[in-house]
């Protein structure tokens, strides 16, 4: 089977990548500033709502309902989209999805397509696949454009260029657009407007993702801020939308929950500037050809795991990234995937579906299990529980290792009081390695611990020994 491009080829494991990222003080400064800003704003936007918890519960329940009858709802969506003049395509994996989109572009003789920011197309590596097939994809979301022009990789679900500050963005724009621009955010936004305007007005094919698809009406929903989405969804002749199969909601009414949860959770607004809803093709208004590509790419495998499947409730708001103490320090690229942060740590390994892949298997450990992600999640994904569940799977996949042998030995020692005391006595000898009450370097395998932290010197006498000597009435 082909490897899933949801992780980037050749990415180091999380601890190795994190070590490099942590040394980058500029990156840490940029992330601290951006995540600090959005955390405060999100908290204020949520505090305004008296029914936030009820909305979260409803969001969770609607998504669980979708997952419990996904086959029926997908067929219903297919029927309603087709009835309104759209064409529905199904793709088992990334390669199949990319081939479908490339063929559709070729059928329109398109050498260029404009794109609305979409996690699904990033996940399947669509831009690279199109490029290889001779079709150039132009990212039109400001942050995606910064990443594309900077030959960079995304580091955040909502704001892929969150790791860049305004002066770095200015440098990229000047170099790649050949224009003089200040580092004022308003000027940078203006530069992007001018740069993309002609592309919007002349490109015939657009590619988008979808935030939601309404099964019973066939309506597709895209939330955005800049208007680049409206441009792509309105002006071209052909629109190709790529969507994960889990992005459904059963009815139009269900959107009332998500249109309240998503903007406040992601950009901390009461409502994002623009939301577009379209159903198939509308004569005389917008693209007259509409294709919907439904992708699996590891989702059905994720669905089989009774604990792990809740990751499929995710609506890609990125609130969990913004509150995560690990993400704030390591940045998104350390996760080696388009899905970074806490949700990435549970979604990516499941989509990869191979716990023998050392990079994917390192992701469930990219957490201190503090639980902040669960508290902010608008669809109540219990990320810490899924993390520990996946850690257990990683251990199982490893089979017999030095660690599992040591753990088995430890279990044998702990099982008997006399063996335990003997081990304590032997262990207390390690105090002779200590300087000032701390051991800074142990021989292997203890060196694996002391390479990153000290061990307090064990006391000369265990509590049990002390108790026997001083308190025991014999």
């Amino acid at each position, binding site marked *: 089977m082909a490897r899933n491009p949801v992780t980037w080829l050749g990415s180091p494991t999380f601890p190795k990548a994190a070590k490099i990222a942590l040394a980058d003080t500029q990156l840490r400064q940029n992330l601290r500033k951006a995540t600090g800003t959005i955390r405060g704003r999100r908290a204020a936007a949520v505090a305004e709502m008296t029914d936030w918890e009820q909305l979260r519960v409803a969001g969770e329940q609607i998504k669980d309902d979708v997952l419990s009858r996904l086959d029926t709802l997908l067929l219903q969506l297919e029927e309603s989209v087709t009835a309104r003049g759209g064409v529905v395509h199904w793709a088992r994996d990334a390669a199949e999805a990319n081939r479908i989109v490339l063929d559709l572009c070729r059928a329109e003789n398109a050498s260029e397509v404009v794109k609305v920011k979409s996690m699904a197309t990033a996940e399947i590596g669509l831009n690279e696949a199109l490029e290889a097939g001779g079709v150039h994809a132009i990212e039109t979301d*400001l942050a995606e454009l910064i990443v594309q022009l900077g030959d960079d990789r995304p580091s955040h679900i909502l704001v892929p260029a969150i790791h860049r500050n305004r002066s770095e963005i200015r440098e990229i724009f000047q170099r790649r657009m050949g224009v003089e621009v200040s580092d004022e955010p308003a000027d940078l936004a203006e530069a992007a407007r001018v740069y993309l305007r002609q592309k919007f007005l002349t490109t015939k094919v657009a590619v988008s993702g979808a935030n939601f698809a*309404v099964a019973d009406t066939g309506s597709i929903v895209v939330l955005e801020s800049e208007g680049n989405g409206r441009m792509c969804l309105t*002006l071209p002749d052909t629109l190709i939308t790529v969507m994960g199969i889990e992005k459904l909601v059963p009815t139009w009414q269900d959107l009332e929950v998500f249109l309240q949860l998503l903007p406040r959770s992601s950009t901390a607004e009461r409502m994002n500037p623009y939301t577009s809803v379209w159903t198939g093709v509308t004569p005389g208004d917008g693209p007259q050809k509409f294709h919907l590509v439904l992708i699996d790419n590891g989702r059905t495998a994720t669905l089989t795991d009774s604990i792990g499947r809740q990751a499929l409730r995710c609506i890609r708001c990125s609130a969990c990234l913004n509150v995560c103490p690990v993400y704030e320090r390591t940045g998104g690229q350390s996760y080696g995937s388009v899905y970074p942060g806490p949700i990435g740590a549970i979604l990516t390994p499941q989509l990869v579906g191979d716990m023998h892949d050392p990079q994917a298997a390192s992701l469930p450990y990219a957490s201190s299990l503090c639980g902040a992600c669960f508290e902010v999640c608008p669809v109540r994904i219990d990320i810490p529980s899924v993390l520990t569940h996946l850690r257990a799977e990683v251990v199982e996949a490893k089979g017999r290792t030095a660690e599992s042998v040591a753990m088995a030995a430890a279990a044998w020692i702990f099982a008997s009081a006399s063996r335990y005391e003997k081990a304590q006595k032997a262990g207390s000898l390690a105090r002779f390695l200590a300087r000032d009450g701390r051991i800074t370097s142990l021989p292997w395998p203890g060196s694996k611990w002391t390479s990153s932290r000290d061990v307090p010197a064990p006391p000369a006498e265990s509590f049990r020994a002390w108790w026997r000597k001083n308190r025991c009435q014999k």
Partner: protein
Amino acid sequence: MINAAAREEILQRIRDAKVPAAQPVIRGYNQKGPGGVELFAERVADYRAIVHTVSNVPEALTSLQGKRIVAPPDVPEEWLVDGVTWLREPLSIEELDQADGVLTGCAVAIADTGTIVLDGGEAQGRRALTLLPDYHLCVVRADQIAASVPEALQRLEPTRPLTFISGPSATSDIELNRVEGVHGPRTLEVLIVT
């Protein structure tokens, strides 16, 4: 039917996952809100849009004098005041791009979030009309203002092409702070008619 094999396989994998039936959805959240013209005006203004409450539309259109303004085919005749160059359909993308602005009505508005919803219906035109001109003047009747998001969705027909507009075009992509003015209209002006 396109790639039927993929379709069948995905559906079969879903069935094989045997996900148990879910609990019924409890909609314990608020269906209604305080609503009202004042709340709507306040929330629209929070997005740095310009808001006026007026009793007469033609009298409030003085700012359009001397401008080239797009008007959808079915705007009320009385809105087409003298002194303005009205651009009427059919209009090319280039003509829309070069217009000074666009004047429309709306389908529904939402007080709670300061949102205007267009559905291509009366006095709104097709979607490109309100996208390319850099200035959008939108007339909202007081009776079009729904209190909450749930109430607004009930009033809308989902199969029409819908655009929810909350303030002028903006981005949060630079250091996660909102900046107004990217690709959509950079100025949004709202006339609330009471």
